[in-house]
């Protein structure tokens, strides 16, 4: 019988997928809310991109340690990570393509 995936592989894999989508949605939200969200993010660290990075890392690490009880097959985790990464990339690229 094959060994199951390590608990941190599952939790940080799911954290990666969730953060990829979250980060893409944060791009759309901040760009559409220049005077509120974007301005707040700029004020927080001096640059919206630094704030964005810090938020992403906090979400990723927090979810990585919170989701250690979740069980999922390696095949499903692979699909979730690929799907979320592709979707996140398409949301970001699609947004700037339409905005350009």
């Amino acid at each position: 019988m094959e060994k199951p995936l390590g608990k941190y592989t599952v939790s940080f894999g799911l954290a990666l997928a969730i953060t990829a989508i979250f980060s893409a949605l944060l791009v759309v939200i901040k760009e559409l809310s220049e005077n509120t969200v974007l301005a707040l993010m700029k004020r927080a660290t001096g640059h919206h991109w630094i704030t964005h990075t810090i938020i992403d890392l906090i979400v990723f690490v927090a979810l990585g340690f919170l989701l250690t009880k979740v069980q999922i097959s390696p095949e499903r985790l692979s699909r979730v990570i690929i799907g979320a990464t592709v979707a996140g990339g398409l949301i970001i690229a699609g947004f700037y393509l339409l905005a350009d």
Partner: protein
Amino acid sequence: MFEVMVMMHAVLGLLVLLAGIWVFVEALNVSQSNVARIRLASLIVAVAMWVTFAVAGYWYVAYYAADKALILKGPWPFAHNFFMETKEHVVLMLLLLTTFLPIAAQNDLVGNKGARSLFLCVAGLIVLIGVAVEGSGGIISMGAKLGAALR
């Protein structure tokens, strides 16, 4: 300093891409004899990405505004409006993928086919996004050059 940082982040980015390809190919041919090397290479990918991210991030925040102004006044404004804007956010996903790679490498890559597939998926995504990011960097650089030439 500006030129050094531009070159450094491009070269370091290329290192991440090459290390990603190395890890991917090693994992395609995984066995007991190379699994330790795969784990080490995964760590190299992650460390290289964090160093690249720190250098590129500093350059972006400290120096990019001048290039941005040149690009937007030049014939290739899309080099910033689409490629830079997309790159600066997609690279965050690359940072997370490379950070996750050494974690995924800790599983039984030799005996567990699912774990191996997962590892290959992550390494493959790193390579694909790495190529897209490097290509975008070239377009952004060209946009700045064209903007400066026509100034």
